[in-house]
Each structure stands twice: as structure tokens, then as C-alpha cells.
């Protein structure tokens, strides 16, 4: 239609609009030109519509779950077993499987994911420095997969080298010592790498120092994103998979209690992701490999695969927003709330 070319022409010449000024004439009386009044709008009109179905991923439960702690004992033993060893450490055995599964990532929005144990992010694996970790990995999916753990391990346990992919129907056992202490991650390292990661094959891997960390309310937070139409760009962002999950169901914390966040960036396609916490500051332990914080800030940027342990204490009760400080990511789902309860500490 002619409108396109004529529009281009108009944009190029920038002539005053005759009809536009006729229409605007009546409206512009008493106000500056070009600013049509907009009705007051509620800031919360931004965001997703509706709620995810009850059988969708439980982002709130995921925060405080590791080593399948959300399962009843009998069920749990099918996926996780601890066996004491002579030197006081544990042998920790995990059953991890890869499976294709359609997951709900925003209300009514489904993504054909590749998952570890049917969930994205995969189950959080948590051990103490020096423990022996044995992961039996079964590939129940339709493509070759693997598990590549960050941490010390011999090349045979890498899961990324040629020939180390586990084909559909096959099983492989990864075994290595938990070392060093810190916050790590695991993910599929089969090519094409981008697709295997953004489809959902990743999870958090925590190794506690022998002496432990101070008691705290601990939260696992994986920053991720989804390319729903496979154009190598993300359509939505989240922390723990579901867009705006913690806007709808704020993370409940206690005023005056130490809160420890295990923050991992597994966002594909975008170079970095970030976390900004409103109204407060936190101590940063990059990669969690030191017990001394490296900085105190309220905004932290992480590259893909980078992670950090954040510690803070809420001073005031009420809602505290947290989100990526890339506004685009925030508005595309990566935004949530902490709800602190209890008497103010100062």
C-alpha cells in the first residue's frame, strides 16, 4: 500500500501535519502541543496475566530445596543417598535423568524444554568439601546429553569432551570429589551447546566449606531465560524459570535474620545478567570460594556461568523489589519481591 512509502517520505521531510494539526487543535487548547493526556495508570498493569497452573514448577519450593529435600523420605531415597565414609566425609549418590518435557514458563505459556529430572533448573546438588559425589545419569530424552560439572575433576568426568555425550537410553556415572567449596553449577555440554543450555539443562551445585557457613535462610536463585520462538533471542527472563513468579508470590524472609542467596547466571544469548536489590546492600562472595566478602553492593553483574553468594539482613519489614538491572530483562519477567516480616532492627 502507498501508506508505507508515503510514511517514509513524511518521516524524511518532517513536514508539519495539516490533518494532525486540525485534530490536535481542539485537544491542544490549554496544554503543551503533542502531549496527549494519559489516564492515571497502575504500575502493576505491567507484567504477565494470570497464574501458572498448580502442576507447574514450584518456584517458591525450589528456593529452599537441595538434594531432593522436598521429597518424602522413601521417595527421596530413590534419587539421593548418603553413605558415611571412614574419614568422616560422605558418599553422596544422585540419580539424575534427562527428559523432554513441556514446561509452563509464564501463565499459559509453554516451552518444549529439555530437563534434568523433569524440572528447570535441574535439582540443586549440595555437598560438603571433601565428600565423594556419584551421579548416575540416565538419558531418557530424544537427543544425546551430558552433565558437565564446574569444579575439580579428571577429564574422564568432564562430560564435554568428544565421545562423552550420553546417547538416548544410555547411562553414565560421574564420580568426583566435591572441591573446592563454593557455589558452582552443572549443565549439559553436548553440542549444539546454546540449544542444550537454553532448552533447560542446567542447575546449581553448592559445595559447603568443611567448617560450614553461619546459619542463614538460604535461597537458590538461578537467573535464566527462554527463547520461545527459537530465533536466538530470549522472549522472557526470570529467576528460577517462571516469569514474575516472586511478584505474585513474594519470597518471605524474617527481619534481622541472615539471608544467603546462591545466585547463578545461566542466561543464554545475552552476554550478562544482573541482580539489583531495592533498599539494601549485600555482601558478595564471588563464586563462594572465599569466606571473606569481596564487596558490598546493591547491584551485581554476572556473565553466563558466573555465580556469587550474596548475604544480607533485612532491617525493615515490608516489600523489597529485586530484579535484573537491565530494565528489559526486568520487564520481560525477571522481577520479584522479598516480603520481610518482623519488627525493625534499627
Amino acid at each position, binding site marked *: 500500500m502507498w501508506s508505507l512509502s508515503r*510514511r517514509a517520505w*513524511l518521516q524524511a521531510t518532517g513536514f508539519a501535519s*495539516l490533518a*494532525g494539526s486540525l485534530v490536535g487543535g481542539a485537544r491542544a487548547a490549554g496544554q503543551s502541543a503533542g502531549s496527549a493526556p*494519559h489516564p492515571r495508570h497502575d504500575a502493576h498493569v505491567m507484567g*504477565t496475566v494470570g497464574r501458572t497452573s498448580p502442576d507447574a514448577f514450584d518456584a517458591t519450593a525450589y528456593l529452599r530445596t537441595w538434594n531432593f529435600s522436598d521429597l518424602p523420605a522413601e521417595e527421596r531415597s530413590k534419587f539421593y543417598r548418603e553413605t558415611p565414609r571412614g574419614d568422616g566425609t560422605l558418599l553422596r549418590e544422585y540419580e539424575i535423568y534427562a527428559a523432554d518435557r513441556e514446561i509452563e514458563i509464564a501463565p499459559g505459556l509453554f516451552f518444549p524444554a529439555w530437563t534434568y529430572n523433569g524440572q528447570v533448573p535441574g535439582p540443586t546438588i549440595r555437598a560438603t568439601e571433601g565428600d565423594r559425589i556419584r551421579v548416575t545419569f540416565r538419558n531418557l530424552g530424544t537427543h544425546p546429553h551430558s552433565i558437565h560439572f564446574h569444579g575439580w575433576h579428571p577429564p574422564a568426568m568432564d562430560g564435554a569432551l568428544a565421545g562423552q555425550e550420553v546417547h538416548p537410553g544410555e547411562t553414565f556415572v560421574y564420580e568426583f570429589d566435591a572441591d573446592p567449596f563454593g557455589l558452582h553449577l552443572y549443565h549439559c555440554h553436548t553440542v549444539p551447546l546454546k540449544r542444550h543450555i537454553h532448552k533447560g539443562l542446567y542447575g546449581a551445585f553448592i559445595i559447603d566449606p568443611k567448617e560450614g557457613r553461619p546459619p542463614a535462610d538460604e535461597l537458590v536463585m538461578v537467573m535464566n531465560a527462554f527463547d520461545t520462538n527459537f530465533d536466538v533471542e530470549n522472549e522472557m527472563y526470570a529467576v528460577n524459570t517462571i516469569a514474575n513468579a516472586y511478584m505474585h508470590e513474594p519470597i518471605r524472609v524474617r527481619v534481622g535474620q541472615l539471608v544467603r542467596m546462591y545466585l547463578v547466571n545461566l542466561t543464554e544469548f545475552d552476554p550478562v545478567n544482573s541482580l539489583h536489590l531495592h533498599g539494601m546492600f549485600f555482601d558478595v562472595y564471588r563464586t563462594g570460594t572465599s569466606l571473606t566478602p569481596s564487596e558490598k553492593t546493591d547491584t551485581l553483574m554476572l556473565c553466563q556461568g558466573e555465580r556469587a553468594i550474596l548475604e544480607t539482613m533485612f532491617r525493615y519489614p515490608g516489600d523489597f523489589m529485586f530484579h535484573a538491572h537491565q530494565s*528489559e530483562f526486568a*520487564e520481560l519477567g525477571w522481577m520479584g519481591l522479598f516480603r520481610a516480616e518482623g519488627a525493625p532492627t534499627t
Partner: protein
Amino acid sequence: MTRRLLLALLPLVLLGALLAVIVRSGPADAVRGEQFPPVERLTFQRVTLEPGAIVASLMNDGPDALTIAQVQVDDAFWTFTADNGAALRHLGRTTLRIPYPWVEGEAHVVRVLTSTGTAFEHEIPVAVETPTPNARFFGVFTLIGLYVGVIPVVIGLLWFPFMTRLSARGMDFLLALTVGLLVFLLVDGASEGFEAAGLLPESFQGAVLFALAAAGAYLVLEAIGAWLKGRRRAADSGYGWVLALLIAVGIGLHNFGEGLAIGSAFALGEAALGTLLIVGFTLHNTTEGLAIVAPLARERQRVALGRLAALGAIGGAPTIGGAWLGGLVYSPVWSVVFLAIGVGAIAQVVGQIVRQMTREGTVARAFATAPVLAGLFAGFAVMYVTGMLVG
């Protein structure tokens, strides 16, 4: 008789049975498999802007059902309501109301995500509040129609006294000029129509719809022309009047399509009508008035002023109606249909003029004269040059 009827119905009954078998057994599913993702196509039919809200009419143009899951505006999830639900069957429609604080004069992108994560985008190049149909709206669009359609055509008609004083060669030149002008409009309208047809949902089969409407308009005008000619012959009045009327109708239909495009483009914020654009249309359409009166001048008839005014109104006033309709209920389908009707009408008129010019001989002989060739070229060139102002 009964037997003949049965024989006529038999293939239809068999066809019905075949369709029933296909629908029940679903051979396509056997090929695609159950896990095959659905084919999703969602078309934005009309996007309008109200203070603090974007309203988008959508149609599921794909073969399978789809569900709208979420809406993003300018890369932000945004709440919305769907007046007809979010689940759309084949050719199902719904209207989304998105409470978004859009910014006047700036661009916005609306993206609809279906349940499968497929994204459908619509760009609003220049956000302008969509006019609501009140008195001021009609006033503004009438004014645009007058500037663009009526006044130029009437001005063109004023060449009539001058034209009646021309020599025979001059008249040949003038009629050929008219043909040149009309052929230009034919090409212009056809290219715009096919472009609009390409934007339609596939189910509407834009190109075929265009051809159908154009052919229909051509045939209807041909019938009307023959009927008018018959009546005129009985009244012993000139054929020039009939031809002028037909040209006026053809140009009127073309201008209706043009008004539709102008009105919708303005209403949907796709174009702001600049002063120069109005000037361009005015120059461009003045030549249309010339085309209407050329056959009358050739017969050197005296024509009452009222009749001239009527011809001008027939040729120009539809621009106003088109602008109204375009501003109010624009959909690309109407754009295609009216552009096609305009093309069909103009084709018929060109045929009429050529027939009149060649009454004395073959087409080739009538055209192979210097004045005619010069006129044809001049007509085309005039339209081309004035067309540059609005292109």
C-alpha cells in the same frame, strides 16, 4: 426430471461422503504425527490507540486452533483483557485491550505470545490517538476528502469551455491524454491493490479477491454503460454524456479506494498527512477532472453547469466517504476490495474511450497519429510527475 436431478446430485453426495471420511480419519494427522506442533498464524487486523490503551483486533488465520498466552509491549510483559477470550479457533477473532501508556509520535511494538511461545508482532510506527467518530472527526475527514478529491476534480472540470474550442487534432490529443491518465491510475491502483492483498491473511486469498472484485466492477459498469446507451439513443442525446458519466463513476470508485487508504493511514497512525501530501493529491486529481469532461468536449455539446457539478461530485465526493470509512472501520480487506473495484471501473472506462476513438477505424490507425501518441505519453507523464509528490 427426478432422474436428472439425481444424476446431478450424485457427485455431490459422493463428495460429501469423501469429506466425512477425511474429517474422521484425518490423513494429515497420520503424516504429521500427534507430536507435531500446530501451525499457528495470527493476524493483526486493526490496532487503535486510545488514551492510555492499545486495542488490537486479532484473527487466527492458521489452520489450527491457538491460545494467546501473554502480551508484550516494547519488550515488557503487559496485562491485557481479551473481549472474546484468548482461545481462537480457525478464523476466530478477539480484541485485546492493553492498558499501556503509549507515547504520542513515537513507535511501539506489540508482541503476542501464544501458548507454544510463538510470537506475532505488530509495529505502530507513529503513535497517534485514533480518532473517535464524533462531529470533529467527520469534519476533519470531510475536509481532507474535499482537499484531495472534490476540489481538484471540480477544478479540472473547469477546462471544459477551453476544451470545446479545440481543433479535432487537439481533441484527439485530449482524449489520448485522458487514456494515459487512466492507464496510470490503473497501474497505480493495481500495484497498490496487490500490495494490500499481500498483507491479508492467507485465507482471504488477496490476489484472487482483487481479481474477482475488479472483474465484477468491470462487468457491472459494462452492463450499466450498455443500458445507459440504450436509453440515450431513445432520447437522441449524445454518447459523450454517457461516457463522461462512466468515467466519473470509474474515477469516483478509484477515489473511494484512495480515500479509504488515506483515512485508515491517518487513523492508524501509519501516516501523518503533510501539507505537501495534500498539495500532491490536489495536483494529481485535478487531471482526473480533465479526463471526465474530455468526451463531452469532443462532441462539442453544451452542458449545463449543474450536470458538470454532478459529474464532479460523482468523481470526487467518494473520497470523503472513503476517508470516513477508512478512519472508522478500516480493515485491509476493504482496502483490497475497493482498490480492485476502482481498477475494474477504470479498465472499463479506458475500453469505452478507446472504442469511441476508434469508431471510424481500427485501433492501430486511431492510435498511430502524432496527437494521440503525444497525448497518451503526456497523460502518463503528468500523472507520474504529480504522483511523485505523493509517493
